[in-house]
């Protein structure tokens, strides 16, 4: 472990040595402490070109893994397995370059990796959290391309859930839509996008469980 960068009381970025691990943006790794059996999957937060590996972790109070990760000190060892997953993002493979990213909570991780890897993307990111303070490192994004939806406080760009925002959003039919976060949001957003005429093959999902 190189550093731990606190974001809120319960969330932090863990920066790890990359050790030449090759990955495609959007993939995840499995993290565990050495000689322990409990492990968790985390989407990679850093970009493909970064010489370190970062993950965004939300501490679960009675969790078996995240409290241990939060106590890590620089130089401590963690085991990293991977990369895995099929949420890879290679923008040049898509027929259009018009991207919509929808995230809840730490589901912003893959999109952070996307824009670090491809800084000139034509995208719009809709990020749903409860409180404005959970806008994890939004300064890394183009402020004209990000919408913060806050469901509890009223300090975001939109007061309400991402799905409510999405309902009123006008979208081109050929928009490539990427959804990452909790299952309920993805299920609802999936229906909204279909209702807007987005074909199912233009919708990509990564559910956080």
């Amino acid at each position, binding site marked *: 472990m190189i550093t731990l960068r606190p974001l809120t009381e319960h969330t932090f970025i863990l920066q790890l040595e990359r050790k030449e691990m090759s990955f495609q943006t959007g993939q995840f790794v499995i993290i565990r402490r050495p000689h322990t059996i409990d492990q968790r999957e985390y989407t990679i937060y850093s970009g493909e070109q970064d010489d370190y590996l970062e993950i965004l972790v939300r501490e679960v109070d009675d969790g078996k893994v995240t409290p241990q990760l939060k106590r890590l000190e620089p130089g401590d060892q963690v085991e990293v397995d991977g990369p895995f997953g099929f949420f890879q993002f290679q923008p040049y493979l898509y027929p259009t370059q018009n991207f919509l990213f929808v995230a809840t909570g730490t589901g912003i991780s893959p999109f952070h990796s996307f824009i670090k890897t491809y800084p000139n993307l034509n995208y719009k990111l809709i990020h749903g959290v409860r409180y404005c303070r959970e806008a994890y490192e939004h300064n890394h994004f183009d402020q004209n391309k990000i919408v913060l939806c806050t469901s509890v406080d009223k300090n975001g760009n939109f007061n309400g859930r991402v799905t409510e925002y999405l309902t009123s959003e006008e979208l081109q039919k050929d928009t490539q839509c990427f959804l990452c976060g909790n*299952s309920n949001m993805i299920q609802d957003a*999936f229906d909204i996008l279909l209702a807007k005429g987005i074909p*199912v*093959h233009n919708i990509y999902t990564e559910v956080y469980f």
Partner: protein
Amino acid sequence: MSTHTKYHLITLGCQMNLSDSERVVSVLNDHGYTWTDNEEEAGLIGILACSVRQKAIDKVYSRIHKWNKWKNHKNLITFISGCMLPDDHEKFLKLFDITFQMKDLPKLPEMISQYGVTSPAHLNPGIDPHNKNIEEFWSVKPSYQSDYEAFIPIQNGCDKFCTFCAVPYTRGREVSRPSKDILAEIALLVAQGYKSITLLGQNVNSYGLDKKGSEIQFPELLRQVGEMGLRMNKEFWVYFTSPHPRDMTDEVIEVISQYPVLAKQIHLPMQSGDDKVLIRMNRKHNMEKYRHIVHTIRRLIPEATLFTDIIVGFTGETEEQFENTRKAMEEFKFNMSYTAIYSPRPGATSHRWADDVPLDEKKRRLHVLTEELRKHNLGNNNRLIGKTIKVLVRGTDRKPGYLSALTEGKLIVRFPENDQNLIGQFADVKVTSASDFSLEGELVNIEQVA
């Protein structure tokens, strides 16, 4: 322990475990241990565990507690391998004398011989998710349980992480067996007269992807098997199971259509006919993709039979979502569906979720799908009446005086015959009647294939 010791092996679970057990038997036989059907007279008892369902794991605990009591009055060494979740593995370390991952099978005799000196003998206390050195395991020559059909592992592990399944946590990452070894094993079996060969893997059509260009991929492996069939001038059928729709490319289907030895039977797990359920299952395929695959199969291999796996009553599955699965059954007219009532599997992600579809409702959904399958299967089977079909005779049927066989498409055919020598042979049978899940016919010709 004397190498004249008798051993007993219990294999739980799927075809992968059964295939693995053929290698365990080889290793023990090669070192002088002798098989016994009676576990009470064994001095060495092993179990290949399955973690797919809690019941199978409960069986392991029940057995080991019994065996450990036997140790009060006899010498006994116990070992365990197979699919084990990390939590169970930790407990087994204390209960069994020897635990090992299947990749370490070649070291089993050494572990047995060291038992009592450095006991208990546990290799790598913990599960190595990378399956390092699994090639050594694959190099063990299996003791095939049949002399006409065989299962060949070509890949181990899974990287797909479906939420209902614990395999990525029990068998580790996808690792592909060297293609030259697979092809050599097939060639040997065919030369010995084997008629049915099944390529096995948790995600068989991901074959080669883990090698990142240093190994051929699944379509090319099939092509080379097909070419071998042409060269050897032998009649045999090669199957594979189980594939994942995500990696089921048009090329795979094209290759199957081009070579006679590649059996025209495709097992394509659908799991659900609803896109949102598939998302929750983390299946990484949607119905559009699935439909494309089925249409390609129907176009290129119209004679192919199509089998599937379906789970009913998955967490959160609504009536509307289930109805989409029923409609998919109606649309695709599967020849067989292995439909399971959802039950949370320990270690799988969905185990943490509410199992919120009542059991009675799950049973109703299972019944609806079974009836759907029955309805169109009868239509499928009726169309075969009067046709003469090649079958592989597999054994005595439950119906007295009949033998049981499978078509290339794995449809069950029974016909009146008592000659046990036909078992393991190809024969031509004229279909005389059909029922929902089987055909009946009369023997037309026995193929004396070299």
